[in-house]
């Protein structure tokens, strides 16, 4: 089992660890999931996401072309330091991983899911040319700082970060070390993701703690992202699901949707024209019942119409929230459905996403 550079630091903060994607990661700290969640929404929280892959590819302009075959973003028009949420697609249009890709001076910086990163690299490298160099960064931690106070607090120590626009990055300085910071995150809050050299990461975290930024574990990361309507790979996304079914059409650049030239385009184009057999929706169960992953979804006439892929209690919504895939004709917002939990069917409604309104800085 691998550990991040902050493992002992987490331990001293009262972390409870769970195995996650081959790493021992904090699921929560002494505050617990609900308080960690609320702290992030009302003030700021930090997350050690160093288990995620920080992947660099360097090469000339031929790199855009190579990557556009497997990533359906408009990379040719991606500006230096601009980030996009996108995917690695297989030949059927299924999602091998979801990722954030940022153009850098000499290539791209891609943040990959921990559980997928080794497989992703195999897949990406197959599509590269000899003059393209790639490596997975092991010298830097990745820290997400999320919440309405994150900009103000970070700017005092990392001058200028508050001027970053959402989904843009740049180099900044912290205690004489260069850091790469992007204004991004996965909580539905304004926030930053900071690639910090391992030898500086404890100092950086100490600064955050001095400023009352709370440590947040994987438990609250999950409740935060679900309230924000964001997908978790391995649950809401998989190789068997394509971006149109996942209701993530917006994440495929319009020009690429039309002109194609990427893995699975044929299938995706057909889905765009003729519709899909299932679609991802938000679901609000009535009352307090929590519909977890795997819960079967029924129509009001008891026809089985889909399955829940993520479900929990949303501390800011103060109610259970879920996402799942259903037959499109039942996906109208407000439509009544039923969820089978422990052998009993419970009423629920299709909901718009996100469940919790975002506060991104544009």
């Amino acid at each position: 089992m691998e550990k991040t550079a902050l493992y002992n630091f987490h331990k001293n903060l009262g972390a409870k660890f769970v195995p996650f994607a081959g790493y021992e990661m904090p699921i929560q700290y002494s505050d617990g999931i609900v308080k960690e969640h609320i702290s992030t929404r009302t003030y700021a929280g930090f997350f050690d996401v160093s288990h995620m892959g920080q992947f660099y590819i360097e090469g000339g302009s031929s790199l855009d072309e190579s990557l556009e075959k497997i990533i359906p973003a408009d990379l040719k028009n991606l500006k230096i330091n601009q980030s996009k949420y996108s995917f690695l697609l297989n030949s059927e249009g299924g999602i091998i991983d979801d990722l954030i890709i940022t153009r850098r001076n000499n290539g791209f910086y891609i943040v990959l899911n921990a559980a997928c990163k080794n497989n992703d690299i195999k897949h990406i490298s197959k599509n590269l040319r000899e003059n393209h160099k790639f490596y997975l960064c092991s010298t830097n931690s990745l820290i997400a700082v999320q919440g309405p106070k994150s900009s103000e607090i970070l700017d005092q120590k990392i001058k200028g970060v508050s001027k970053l626009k959402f989904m843009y990055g740049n180099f900044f300085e912290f205690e004489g070390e260069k850091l790469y910071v992007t204004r991004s995150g996965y909580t539905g809050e304004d926030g930053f993701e900071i690639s910090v050299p391992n030898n500086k990461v404890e100092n950086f975290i100490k600064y955050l703690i001095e400023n009352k930024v709370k440590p947040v574990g994987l438990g609250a990361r999950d409740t935060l992202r679900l309230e924000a309507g964001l997908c978790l790979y391995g649950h809401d996304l998989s190789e068997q699901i394509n971006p149109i079914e996942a209701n993530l059409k917006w994440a495929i650049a319009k020009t690429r949707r039309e002109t194609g030239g990427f893995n699975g385009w044929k299938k995706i184009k057909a889905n765009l024209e003729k519709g899909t057999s299932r679609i991802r929706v938000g679901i609000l169960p009535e009352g307090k019942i929590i519909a977890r992953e795997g819960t079967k979804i029924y129509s009001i006439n008891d026809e089985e119409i889909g399955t829940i892929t993520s479900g929990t209690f949303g501390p800011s919504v103060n109610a259970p929230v879920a996402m799942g895939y259903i037959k499109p004709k039942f996906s109208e917002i407000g439509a009544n459905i039923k969820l089978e939990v422990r052998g009993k069917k419970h009423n629920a409604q299709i909901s718009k996403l996100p469940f919790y309104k975002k506060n991104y800085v544009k």
Partner: protein
Amino acid sequence: MSEKKYSKKHEWVELNGDIAVVGITKHATEMLGDIVFVEVPENGKSVEKDAQAAIVESTKAASDVNSPMSGDVTEGNKSIAEDPSRVNSDPEKEGWFFKIKIKDKSEFDSLMNKSDYEKFIKDNPN
């Protein structure tokens, strides 16, 4: 005079005559984390020793609450179903789950007393 005992599944039982009050221990709530859903049994439901009688869910997962004794449910705690966080804040008093009319007092005798339970959780921290 009531007497309180504990099960290896981290339930507590307080016996008053032939009525047993059942809940989950503070240690159980610490392992579960924030409790966000509780389902308590209906009055009259018959429960078996060590069989599932109630449900408790944290933000992380759902777990069964077993009844450490056999009997018929006389009352479920509606207030924790309405506000599940009460189980976290006061697990061994206000946060009780259900009451049963017991069938066999010897089942109570086989449970752990407080000091045995404390030793048990020390030896089995997870």
